[in-house]
Every structure is written in C-alpha cells, then in structure tokens.
C-alpha cells in the first residue's frame, strides 16, 4: 500500500445502472460493510416500479445512494461525491445529482452504440467523447470486459459471467475506501451455498475489482472515513421495514400474545410480510390474504380471538380497508394498521416516497371514527413506533395507524438496538370468567381510561355480541336511541383524546423556546430537518426543531410549545397536510414547505426556506 491515505469526514456515493445490473445488491453490501466499519450512514434506494424495465433506457435506471461519515449522518445526502454508472442512461439520469468536481466511475461497455441509442443520446453526443464531463474526475473502465477476463476459466456462460460485474464495482469501491472485503465474501457464501460455480465466480470478480483498483494506478490515494463517535452500546444496521417487523414481534413477545399479521402484496409494504414470515418460531402467524379487505378483516377476526393483530399496506390498499377500519373502531378491539406511504393519488408512484396519506389516516372513514395516528421518523424509529402502535392498540382497545413511507421503509441506518428488558411493558388484561350469570355481562362498560374489556371467546360467562351497528353504552346491544348515539360518539372520541395522557410530551429535538423560529416536522423528513438545523447552528443561527411522532392525539403540551414561536415552518413531502391539522387545532399561522416530487427533501431546500422566513 504505497498510496496516501486521505481522510474524509463524509462521503456520498450513488451507484446507478440498469435495473438488472445488481445495483441494489451492490448498495446493500456496501452499506453492511460501512455499518460494520463503524460509520454512521443513511441510504436511499431508488428503483423503477417495473421489475425489468426496458434495458438500457433512462426509465430502467436503478440507483442506490449511501451517505456515510465520521460524523453523525441523518440523510442519504443531497448531491453525491462519487457517481458510479454502469451505462449511459444511468449517467444521463443522475449527472445533476453529482457535486461539482465530483468523481464519476464509468463502465465504458455501457456506452456503446446500442446503449447510446436506448438512452436517447444523439449520435456524436457520447458524453465520454464530447467534453461534457469536463470539470468532473472521470475514471473509465470496461468493467464488463474486465469481469469476463477475470472469469476466463469459469464454466459459467457469458450471461452468468456478466452478472458478476456488480461485484467488480463493489471490490473497486471497497479498495477506494480502504475496506476489507470479508463481509461480502461471507454474504456470498450464504447466498450461493448451493451454487459453488456462481459463488466462486462472484468471489473471484469481487477480488479482481479490489486488486484492479490497487494496481491500475488511477487513484493516487485511498480515502478513509473514520468510524463515527457514536454513543456506546450495541449496534446493527437496519432497514425501515425490517425494523417495523421487529417492533411488532417484540411487542407480541412482551405482551405474551401471538402476532397475527395479515397482508396483501403491495409496494412498498411487502417486505414487512417477508420479514415476519421468517420468524414463525416466535409464534408469528402470517396470512397472505386474497385482498386488502380480507387482510384487515381477518386481522379483526384474530383480534376477537385474542391475538395481536396487524395489517400493513400502502395508500391504495389502505383506501380499500376503510370500511373495516370503521368496524374495528366500533368493536373497540386492538388492531395495528401500518401504512408505508408511497406517491399518490390512485396508483401514483409505487416506488417513490410521499407523506400524503396523513389526512387519510386521520379522517378517512365514514362517520365519526377517530383512530390514533403515530409516525416513524427514521428507519430505526420504525421499531420504536411499531412497538408503540401495539402498546396503544392493546392498552386502549383501539385500532392504531402507524405511518411510515417508502423512503424510511427501504432506507437503512445503524441502530443502537435495545435489550428486551428495557422495552416498556405492555399490559394485557382479558375479561375473567364469570360463574355468577344472574346479571348480564356488560362488554361496553369502561374503565378510567374509557377502555372496555377484551373478552375472548372461550371465557365462560362473558358471551356477548359485537357489531358495526350503534350499540348500547353498556350492554353493547343494538341501539337506535338518539341520546345513546350522541353519547357513544362523544365517548369514543374522548377515549382517543385521553391517550394523550399515556404518550410522551413533545420535546425539542434541537433548540429551545429561545430559538428564533421552529421547524415542526413529522415522519421521514426528520433527517433532512435535523441536518439543516445542525448546519445552521454551526453558522450561529439558532433554529428549533420539534418532530411530531404522535399525531392523533397530539402531545398535551404541543399547543403551549407552538405558542412560544412567531415563526413556524412545517416541511412536508405532500401538499400541506400536517399544517392543516396544526392550524385547525391550534390556530397558529404556521407556514408550509411542500415538495411533491416523489423524493425526500434536500437539506438546501429546507435551509433556503428557513433563511427566507428569518428575513421576513
């Protein structure tokens, strides 16, 4: 190793190529390696909705962005330092996301005549030849050819050999950042344990990429991003949907209930089902229902039976579940509904992110049907909030909405995971057997929290009938009495409002009541806002950041907290939904910042809005 080690504080790399190029695998492997190395990180996978979008076209480009650092990292980064492109379409799509004087690593095989035509690049306009990349550091290699050469002796066919080229890239980048390749070798050994030829080829190409970087003398130095100084504890890398699944299992385990998870395949929620299906030894019952309605209705049935019921979907699926949500609310049975939001409306942008289902969660039912709504703010926070959703559902006998979105559901970050004994206990109480049946059982009698009993079939003496018709306030029998209906509507609303007594008060994530203004966020905008607010602090501008995780009901002190500011900015990946709720409930003149492009905020966008507001 003769090269100079060059220390960097933070790096953003964007891997991009055809959706069949193995970009997502390259990205996740680099992520695992980075996490184990001890860097803080944040990732952003970005892929087309089609499984094999037309080869070589801009529409078919798949990307994976990772931001990692020796310092705290909260977002996948705005512009990248390094852009790895497997073909011309990937370059065309992503060049605007590269910093000035950034580095481009090019697979020249993806810039041939055919690829230029497929990417819609006019003849004679090959960006590698027309000086349009001047100002960038461009490193060109025929990665396809190098991969084939390193597999001369392999018995694999050309197609299978070419598939290994993502490993060449991975090896190359590992070398650039002074990493060891062991984590990927052990990954490959598990993945291809039954296909030794494929395994050997992948390892050979990974090593070839690594050694090629070392010997090709392209780089005079290697880069190193020192491990981040993180609070002491045990860490792992976690993806949002995986964290949601673990949160649900943890809640079932702590409450000693079986988890019943029912879902219908939908992007980007399906990975929760996939993850849960792996953990049947925890008594996790997964049910792939025939449709979204059956998914929620079977969960309601399982709740009546005494399981911890969960269903997850994304916007269109949640719309289908609407009627059953009202039923669950009327029955006052526990139920967790996870909405991994995606771009809407209608089918919208399935693989892109958005926060536009908040009002659907809060209001999207017929009649007066309040349901608690909480939201996760980062991949690892999905664990905490999934656990909270279960706790609230069980302890308050109500359906609970957990909002996540495509960005944090597919994004990854290091997670200081808790030990099971530190998790909040979840109190489950079932109705007890009644041997004296002289008096009628009252299934809708409420305790001080206004919560009714969970009376399971199989329990003697508590036989009762539930249903979606309005019911008498105590017996639960069908009631058309006008006063009873008004009472029941009010009491159901009050029951949900009372949950505010059992959730944490709102705190400032950054800043204080003395800060110049407040940024109020919710959900996946956490990282972008936090990054901006921290940057501003280093410039001497004191801006407060509060991030709302409990949206219905809102924390008890939120009104007072908001009242302390003249200027409040609410950035959202929608056309202004939280701001509607905030203005409605607190009559404050908050200002919106809306981005509806299917992608997260870039820090500079939020920064600009803050600076503009401070000027006013």
């Amino acid at each position, binding site marked *: 190793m003769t090269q100079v080690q060059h220390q960097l504080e933070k790096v953003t790399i964007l891997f991009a190529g055809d959706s069949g190029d193995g970009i997502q695998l390259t990205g996740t492997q680099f992520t695992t390696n980075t996490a*184990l190395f001890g860097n803080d990180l944040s990732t952003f996978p970005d892929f087309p909705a089609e499984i094999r979008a037309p080869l070589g076209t801009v529409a078919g480009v798949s990307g994976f962005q990772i931001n990692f650092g020796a310092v705290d990292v909260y977002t996948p980064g705005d512009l990248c330092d390094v852009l790895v492109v497997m073909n011309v379409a990937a370059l065309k799509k992503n060049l605007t996301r590269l910093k000035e004087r950034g580095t481009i690593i090019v697979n020249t095989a993806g810039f041939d005549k055919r690829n230029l035509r497929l990417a819609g690049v006019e003849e004679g306009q090959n960006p590698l030849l027309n000086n349009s990349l001047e100002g960038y550091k461009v490193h060109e290699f025929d990665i396809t050819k190098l991969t084939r050469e390193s597999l001369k002796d392999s018995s694999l066919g050309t197609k299978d050999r070419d598939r290994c080229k993502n490993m060449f890239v991975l090896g190359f980048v590992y070398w650039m950042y002074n990493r060891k390749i062991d984590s990927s070798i052990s990954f490959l050994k598990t993945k291809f344990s039954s296909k030794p030829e494929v395994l050997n080829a992948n390892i050979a190409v990974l090593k070839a990429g690594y050694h090629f970087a070392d010997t090709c003398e392209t780089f005079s130095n290697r880069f190193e991003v020192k491990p981040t100084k993180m609070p002491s504890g045990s860490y792992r890398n976690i993806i949002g949907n995986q964290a949601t699944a673990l949160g649900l299992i*943890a809640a079932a385990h702590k409450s000693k209930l079986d988890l019943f998870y029912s879902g219908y395949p939908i992007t980007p929620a399906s990975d929760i089902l996939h993850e849960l299906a792996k953990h049947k030894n925890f008594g996790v019952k997964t049910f792939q229902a025939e449709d979204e309605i059956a998914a929620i209705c079977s969960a309601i049935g399982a709740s*009546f039976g005494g399981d911890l*019921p969960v269903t997850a979907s994304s916007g269109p699926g949640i719309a289908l579940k609407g009627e059953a949500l009202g039923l669950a609310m009327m029955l006052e049975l526990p139920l967790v509904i996870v909405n991994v939001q995606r771009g809407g409306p209608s089918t919208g942008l399935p693989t892109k992110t958005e926060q536009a289902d908040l009002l659907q969660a809060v209001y999207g039912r017929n009649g007066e049907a309040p349901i608690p709504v909480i939201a996760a703010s980062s991949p690892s926070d999905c664990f905490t909030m999934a656990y909270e959703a279960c706790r609230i559902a069980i302890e308050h006998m109500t359906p609970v909405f957990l909002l996540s979105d495509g960005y944090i559901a597919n994004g990854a970050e290091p997670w*200081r995971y808790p030990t099971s004994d530190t998790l909040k206990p979840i109190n489950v109480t079932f109705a007890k057997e009644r041997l004296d049946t002289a008096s009628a059982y009252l299934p809708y009698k409420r305790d001080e929290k206004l919560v009714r009993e969970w009376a399971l*079939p199989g329990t003697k003496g508590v036989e009762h*009938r539930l249903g*979606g018709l309005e019911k008498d306030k105590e017996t639960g029998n069908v009631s058309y009495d006008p006063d009873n209906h008004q009472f029941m509507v009010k009491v159901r609303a009050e029951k949900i409002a009372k949950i505010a007594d059992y959730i944490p008060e709102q705190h400032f994530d950054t800043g204080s009541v003395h800060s110049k203004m407040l940024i109020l966020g919710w959900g996946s905008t956490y990282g972008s806002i936090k990054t901006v607010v921290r940057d501003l602090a280093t410039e001497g501008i004191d801006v407060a950041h509060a991030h709302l995780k409990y949206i219905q009901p809102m924390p008890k002190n939120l009104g007072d907290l908001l009242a302390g500011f003249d200027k409040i900015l609410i950035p959202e990946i929608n056309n202004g939904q939280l701001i509607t709720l905030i203005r409605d409930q607190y009559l404050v003149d908050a200002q919106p910042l809306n981005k509806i492009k299917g992608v997260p905020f870039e820090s500079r966008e939020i920064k600009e809005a803050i600076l503009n507001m401070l000027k006013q």
Partner: protein
Amino acid sequence: MAEAKHIQEEGQKLKAKNFESDQDIRWCPGCGDYSILKQVQGIMPELGIPKEDIVFISGIGCSSRFPYYMNTFGMHSIHGRATAVASGLKASRPDLSVWLVTGDGDALSIGGNHLIHLLRRNFNLNILLFNNQIYGLTKGQYSPTSELGKKTKSTPMGSIDHPFNPLALCMGAEATFIARGIDREPKHMRTILMRAEQHKGTSLVEIYQNCNIFNDGAFGGFTDKQMKKENSLYLEHGKPLVFGVKEDKGIVLDGFNPRIVDLTSGEYTPEDLWVHDEKCRNKANILTRFFDDPSLSESLPRPFGIFYQEDRFQYEEALYEQLNFMKEQKGTPDLDKLLAGSNSWEVK
C-alpha cells in the same frame, strides 16, 4: 390451543333455550329465518360444545342479524366480509366452533371473493348461506341468485343478469362439504347441520329461505305439498336417486348425462339407478347442475341433502404445523438474539 375442547361438563347438559339471547327478534313475521334459527338453537345442545366456545359471525343483510339472537359469542361484521373475519378468528383460535351466517347478496355478490378463498383454504368452520334470491334488507332488489327476467324495483323490465348456481360455484372453489336444505323441512335441515359441524373443514350449507315480503314463494316448487315431491330429490349416501309423489321416478346416469326414468313401466328397477356417493367429486359436480326451473316440463328435480364431502387438510392445521416445526427447529424464541441480528458491533 390447537385441539378442540368440545366436551361439555357432566351434568351440565344445555337446552335449546340456553342458546336464545335476550334480544327481541326483528325479522318480519313469517320469515324463513325463524325456522333456521330454531333448528340451529335446537342442535346446539346436541353438539356437546360449551356455549362459550361457540362463535357466530355474520356479514350484512337480514340473515346476518342472526348472531344477535344466539346467546353465544358473536360478531355482526360488515357486508360480505364475515368470511374473512371468520378466517382470522379460526387462524387465531382453532379451538372454537365457528358458524358463519350469510345471505345470497352477502356471500355471492359483495363477498364473492372471500367466499371462494375461504372454501379453498378449508378452515374448519360452518357456513350457513341463506338463499332467498332477493335483497330483503334494502327492500327488494334482485340478487345474484335471482332468476333471469326477475322484475324488482331495480329491474322494472326484468333482470338481465344470468344467475349464479351457488353450489356449482362452491364446487369450483374446491369446497370440501356441500349441502342444501330448505326452511320448510326442519328435520332434514337438522341432519345436515349436525353433519356440517362434524365435518372437518369448511362446510357450505345452502338453505333455501322464503322471503315472504319481497320474494314470496320463490321456492314454492319445493315446498308446495302437491309439487314438492315431483320437484325435489332428497339425497342419501349409498341410496339410489328416487323421487316423485309415489317414489316412482329415478335418475340414471348415461355417461355424463343424467336422465329421468320411470320406475313403474318395468323397464327400470331401483338397482339400475344412480347411487348417491358423497365422496364422488365428479358425480357431485353433475348433481350441482340439477338446476332446472321446476316449472318446466322434463326438468330434473332439485337435489337436497349432502352433495359432497371430502377429507382435506385444514388451513389452521397446516399453519400450526409450520409454527410448531419452526419452534422445534429454532428452539425457544430469544428476542435479544433477534434484535441483535447476525451483524452487530459494539461501540465502547
């Protein structure tokens, strides 16, 4: 919890009355539902299942008010979805005796999708499909089982919807128990209901039920004293298919084609007839096609009784087998190990 605890304690023999709830019944006077309710309440003590282990689940419609009148656990869910609710309940609690009450609109129109999927999964529960060939609760629109040309409020010129043949549909959906009863034959209904509960898997019992307000006499051909014996064929396992006022007609099977024969001419004896075999899927398929309009001459009689019964694994059985297998493979679940995953590191 997987094993049923279907045994009542000694000396606690329940009566039909114990299964009546304290709610006033609100079906129209003369509705066929009363007869069905009475038979269901009547067989409950015979089943030997503790009252608290029985659950009635329904959707929406006249029939779906049923759970309110049973002093068991019950849920009046939403339109068409009782099938899905019951599936989840059975997956969580295989120990319960679950009864699903639905109608032709609830099960075959808005809930058609869930019905076919429940049947193929074969959860161990009983479906009572009250078929009155009309929407009653919404005051008289044609239903998916209404005959072609039916004049109702929504079809003043007559329905142009070809109707479903519910039992043929259920056979197509891989049902493992298919039967038909009628509100006016309570004793026969009782036998079917008992068999339905005994069947391990989803039992689908279609019950012809007269709506005396909006579709009175829809099944007159099978209830009228004069006509019913000519138009109905009562199935008994192992017995030849005989019908008619004087039991003077029989069915023979020519290849795939059923044919009515005269037992009085001397040409045919009962030995020549099709013998009913509940286990034969092919014959059951043909039997479900006995669906002629009884007012037409030469029409095949409408079968009542158990068409088909098959032993097939139940969804919840397989579900718990997988859970138990994984528990054995992986041992006692360790949450801390799960949270740590396979690639964790320590920061000091």
